[in-house]
């Protein structure tokens, strides 16, 4: 019940002083329990046509190809029972290959790429698969502590099939030496849970001679509301 004393083995705590921005934004009072399933109303339902063809290809948003290592990013969206979460919205956003976001608040002195906005969305298919075409994002410095650099990452937002499944997370890349010094990544207390945020190199997911492949499966909380498969 009290988040400040009970360490959730999967999610980070609200207060994690190594990540400075948590200090004035983490609640101090104990969290209050709601009755089970209070948030387990199915929805919100994304209507047909909400995601348009082409929104999953982040390399086709400009006049020509963006700079950077082209990559195919694919994976499955699953619930805690290992069942696919079907026709569910996956939204991603990321920095360009130089480590700069197409965003007015990003004043990092790295070049913008006019051919890369770094925003994509997709719906999962009947097996829970999603697939994006993008470029590998660059690492970038931030002001959390001296010599702080965020590891390369792609932000993910998942609606799931009910609010209890709602998840916003970040996907990292295998072998990134910056993971060891990143307080956002390391805010997750359990080492095995941290590893579940790292994609795996999956060459066959890529396109021969054109794009590297990365695989990233995402597991949402279980939901009573999750429709049973046929």
């Amino acid at each position, binding site marked *: 019940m009290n988040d400040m004393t009970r360490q959730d083995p999967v999610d980070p705590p609200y207060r994690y002083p190594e990540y400075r921005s948590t200090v004035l934004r983490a609640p101090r*009072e104990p969290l*209050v329990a709601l009755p089970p399933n209070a948030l387990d109303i199915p929805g919100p339902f994304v209507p047909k046509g909400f995601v348009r063809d082409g929104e999953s290809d982040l390399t086709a948003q400009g006049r020509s190809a963006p700079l950077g290592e082209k990559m195919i990013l694919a994976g499955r969206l699953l619930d805690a029972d290992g069942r696919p979460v079907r026709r569910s919205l996956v939204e991603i956003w990321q920095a360009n290959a130089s480590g700069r976001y197409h965003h007015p608040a990003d004043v990092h002195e790295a070049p913008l790429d006019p051919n890369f906005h770094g925003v994509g969305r997709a719906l999962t298919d009947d097996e829970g698969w999603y697939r994006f075409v993008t470029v590998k994002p660059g690492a970038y410095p931030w002001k959390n502590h001296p010599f702080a650099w965020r590891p390369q990452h792609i932000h993910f937002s998942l609606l799931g099939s009910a609010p209890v499944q709602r998840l916003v997370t970040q996907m990292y890349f295998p072998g990134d030496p910056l993971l060891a010094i990143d307080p956002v990544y390391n805010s997750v207390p359990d080492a095995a849970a941290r590893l579940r945020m790292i994609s795996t190199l999956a060459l066959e997911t890529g396109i021969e001679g054109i794009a590297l492949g990365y695989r990233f499966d*995402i597991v949402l909380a279980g939901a009573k509301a999750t429709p049973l498969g046929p």
Partner: protein
Amino acid sequence: MAAQRTPSQTIGPFFHEGLRWKDAEKVAFAETGQAIVLTGRVLDGAGEPVGDAMIETWQLSPRGRAPAAAAGASRPHGFARVETAKDGSFRIETLLPGGPAPFLDVAIFARGLLKPLRTRAYLAREEMVRADPALAAIAASPRIKTLVALSAGDNAYRWDVRLQGDGETVFFAA
């Protein structure tokens, strides 16, 4: 086959273009009902505005039903997604949910929040909120006032969120 959950991470400061939906501050329904406007501000533990938060709300329909799949709609029914402005303010247009103590389920995402904060904005008188069985654990607490949106004129409600410290909003275990 059980699978292990993927951890939550902060939404960070650069989500706006990635998560912006057209007209998502105006909640759509298949039903008609009483139109209301909810405005407020999000403040941090120093009383400073949280100008880079995203707020999502989810609610029952005016007849008290779970919002159905939205055939032919431009966005999901029953759901709002808004950004706070630099001064921490936000504004949501919706229909009053059904039930004796109607409320919006609220999730707050921001830089510095490694996982969302869950709360409720009740659009009802305080005594009706205290009588909501879901809030039995805090029915007698003075903190319950933080869940009650104040009347701000005809069909207008005002609800501020304090993430930390004096007047800290009640947040729920997810």
